């Protein structure tokens, strides 16, 4: 069974997608045609346009933020909070089944 990721849009609507482990959360959105992720750089933590807000109960369960991601998060279009991550840096694993992330208003 493939892990399920839920994307919550700024207007409250939700998209549930199933994605193969090994893909990133950014790719999960792109492959499943979820609007609201730009990923201008294609997943290299170089553009800060795949910004998401991770739901509270998940923030502790994700892999740690690398130095590169940390510095890129300073450049997101919408405000950076404690829940902010770059979705290209979150690899989908079976443990992340049920992950919920909110999409920001803007990426650019």
């Amino acid at each position, binding site marked *: 069974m493939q892990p399920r990721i839920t994307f919550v849009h700024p207007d409250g609507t939700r998209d549930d997608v199933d994605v193969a482990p090994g893909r990133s959360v950014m790719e999960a959105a792109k492959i499943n*045609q*979820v*609007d609201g992720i730009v990923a201008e*750089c*294609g997943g290299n933590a*170089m*553009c800060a346009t795949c910004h998401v807000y991770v739901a509270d109960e998940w923030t502790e369960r994700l892999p740690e933020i690398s130095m590169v991601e940390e510095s*890129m998060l300073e*450049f997101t279009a919408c405000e950076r909070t404690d829940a902010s991550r770059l979705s290209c840096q979150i690899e989908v694993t079976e443990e992340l089944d049920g992950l919920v992330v909110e999409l920001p208003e803007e990426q650019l």
Partner: protein
Amino acid sequence: MSVDDVVIVGAGHAGVQTAVTLRKRGFEGRISLVGADDEVPYQRPPLSKTYLEALVGGEGALGGLLDLQPESAYEKLRVHLLRGREVTALDRDRRLVHTSDGEELRYDKLVLATGARPRTLDPPEEVSDRVVHLRTKSDTERLARLVGPGAKVAVLGGGFIGLEAASVLSRLGVEVQVFDNAPRVLNRGLSTRMADHLVEQHRRNGVSIHTDWSLERVTTGEHRPVALFSDRGDGYECDLVLTGIGVLPETGLARAAGLTVDDGVVVDGSLRTSDGDIYAIGDCARFPSDRSTGGSLRLESVQNATEQAKHVGNAIATGQDGEYESVPTFWTEHWGLRVQMAGIVEPGDELVVSGEPDEGAFSVLAFRHGRLVAVESVDRPIDHLSARRILGDRENLPSARDLDAYEYDLTAWSKRSRESSVREVVGRT
């Protein structure tokens, strides 16, 4: 006059973004988006990068990863997407656009996002199916069907697309040689310092680059299907010729309709053509900019297409034409190195290197008339994003001496200058 009908010609990055922005800014009228390609509108940069790698490497098509918008988005946004259709004529008196299948589309505002087409070789018929360029998905698919590990490919033209493809193909076991008639490759849009660095990567990885090499003819080969000969008589046989010899802006429609054209559809500071109800954006448009010594720019980049589309979408939706201004950015990938560029570098700019090129991560800073005008970065994304901020503040472009005091650390300088401008504002009140 109210705007009911908007027609967008061209469904690439610029055209699609215009439609999206129109709706996001509250435009309620009809939007028609006409594109020549049969596919759902897709991103072009991967065609010489990840898409090429996935197809030649056997990973297969990338599904929705290439789509600019999910296919379902067009219906949701109420965008009338006409795929696989060309616009054949423009009737400005009656405000009509004619399409190749005989349809007439009425417009109040028209957006030309026609892009550019590759320069081609016009090879003899017996080898024409083995001379390809990369502009559409089907171009990349055709190339991938013709080459695999062990194949020989000649890349004609040492620009971004040719060398990007050279690095992808070579990494997958294809033997690649690059031929260019200029004395240097990557001599457009990149500083000599960065170009040299990338050429070195190619050479180190076994890609031969032949400069001052002028093509005399393409013909069938004796041992391989195609042979190339230079004007000096030396030949090279290969399975496929990939041409990357530049593009020409698609201006035919504009020219035939009597709009001003000069290596691009000429627009004013609000991106309007010589007809105020017609805009031109993206690769096909020449717009005024003092970032270029020549006073105008025509840029072939995703960022330019997207930003200009947002500007025009907003202008039409709100009825407010403003001045377009944006820091041009680009990126290119070679042998796993990702180069990010901000600003416009020109021959003669003074170059300063920050960081350690030998260790892989560095930036080239370009100065003109003593002020920073462009930054090219390898594996220093923070430099790139700081450069965007710094170059966007036109009144306060730093000099080399300003930056020298911060050891050319763009982020540190950017933070300092923001703090000091905050202090100034506070001081005034």
